[in-house]
């Protein structure tokens, strides 16, 4: 269900975005467009500004310049809850579930703007998508394992059927054996038509699951291309993916 960036109107359009923390500017004139259903990986060295870009898109920090449009609507001035209502899901790297709430309550909060029947239906849908969560609906989220928390964070963000979901390091803190399962789940979102923008340190592995990737360095977009093309570029492999040749 992935759209074509060349022809489909983007679901998320970022133009000339500057952002940072106080006086410290991290992002410089970032341009990115994400097509409906497209899965995009942001990768690059530490300090490249990947997580800052995700935070700026989620309006956890306020951009100092540039324009972001979600489904054709400018996001400037929108509060985070209004952004969620407009179709943006956000899964932060850490503290991404409500630890004192049960799994079911976390999902209910994800669907807080849905009508009661629809919310219950979506919780059932999430149970089918993540059977591990269905077994633990009444368990406190704070007692879940790292992998289960990531599943819950993803499921919570998916509850309102967002147009775009922003994932900040979904494999962080997860046992290596579970990382591919997390990426499988993210790749599985194609079936829902939800676009994904994901930051991931484990870029080499993540590239195998996404449609397109954006290389960031020094707060700027260095290049964008299809994931397949980037996986086969020896220079990218050697410099950014930790391989001596394309794999």
């Amino acid at each position, binding site marked *: 269900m992935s759209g074509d960036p060349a022809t489909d109107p983007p679901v998320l359009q970022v133009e000339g975005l500057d952002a940072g923390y106080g006086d410290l500017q991290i992002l410089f004139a970032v341009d990115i467009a994400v097509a409906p259903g497209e899965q995009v990986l942001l990768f690059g060295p530490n300090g490249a500004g990947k997580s800052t870009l995700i935070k700026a898109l*989620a309006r*956890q920090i306020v951009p100092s310049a540039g324009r972001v449009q979600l489904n054709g609507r400018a996001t400037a001035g929108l*509060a*985070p*809850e209004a*952004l*969620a*209502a407009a179709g943006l899901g*956000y899964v*932060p790297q850490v*503290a*991404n*579930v*409500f*630890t*004192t*709430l049960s799994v079911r*309550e976390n999902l*209910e*909060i*994800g669907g*807080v*703007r849905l009508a009661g029947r629809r919310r219950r239906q979506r919780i059932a849908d999430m149970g089918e998508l993540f059977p591990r969560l269905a077994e633990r609906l009444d368990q406190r989220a704070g007692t879940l394992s790292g992998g289960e928390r990531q599943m819950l964070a993803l499921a*919570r*963000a998916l509850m*309102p059927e967002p147009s775009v979901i922003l994932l900040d390091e979904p494999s962080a803190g997860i046992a290596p054996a579970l990382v591919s399962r997390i990426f499988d789940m993210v790749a599985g979102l194609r079936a829902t038509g939800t676009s994904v923008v994901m930051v991931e340190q484990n870029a080499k592995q993540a590239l195998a699951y996404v449609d397109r990737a954006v290389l960031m360095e020094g707060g700027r977009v260095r290049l964008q291309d299809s994931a397949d093309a980037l996986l086969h570029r020896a220079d990218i492999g050697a410099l950014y993916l930790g391989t001596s040749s394309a794999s």
Partner: protein
Amino acid sequence: MDLNAFLQTLVYGLALGGTIAVSAVGLTLSYGVTRFINFAYGEFLTLGAYATLALAGAGLALPLAGAVSVVAVGLAGVAIARLAFDPLMHRGLLPLLVTSVGLAFVLHNMVRMVAGANPLRFPLPLMRPWEVAGVFVPREQVATIAVALVAMALVHLLLSRSLLGKSMRAVADDAALARSAGVAAPRVLAATWFLSAAIGALGGILLAVTQVTLDPAMGWRFLLVVFAAVLLGGIGSPYGAMLGGLIVGLGVELGATYVSADYAYAFAFVLLILVLLARPRGLMGGRT
């Protein structure tokens, strides 16, 4: 030990504990969502008691006067918070704390100006206590315990069953995450202020019943005991506040009866210190 006297003390302790527990829940709810301790909270207790007295004086039956007062003080709490606290919410804790202390004095003196400084009483009819197996159980104390139990059950239902209650718990858990998940934070904040002030008003009404009299400083004086219950239970935890309130109430009454009535409320703080030494985050700290 005289068993009847002990049981009688327990009844008084449960009534006081219920009063403290209800009051503590209101304070801890607002702390959980706003992350600052509202020093004007005691004035919601005072306003609740005086509004009830005024409405009862105007001819309303006492329970109806109490119910109307609870809603009225809840609405006043929303208005006060919107005017005094909301504009300062992003300016750090100190301005909020100082404002809440100043607000406490303003409200306290407004009540004194309107109603006078002399202690007053609810127009309760004289009622013979029930005698149960040789223990005299005052009906006012039983009514206080019953109202406190119903109030705590309602708070439990709100927090565990309603979407509003779950949203309040989500904001208390992680406000930024709750907002990015779509929770309308301003609406949840307004609902929290309403509930906090309304529950405080109910606590004030129960306090006026258990302590027999009401005066303009009653809420301010009682605030310290309510703090003790909140901290003992674990700040920010409504269930901890309920438990803390009951423990403090029982401790105060048992200490007053068996050790010294002069130091009745000091026992609340002895209990608090002992619990915090063993569990620095309170009995239910870290849970909601």
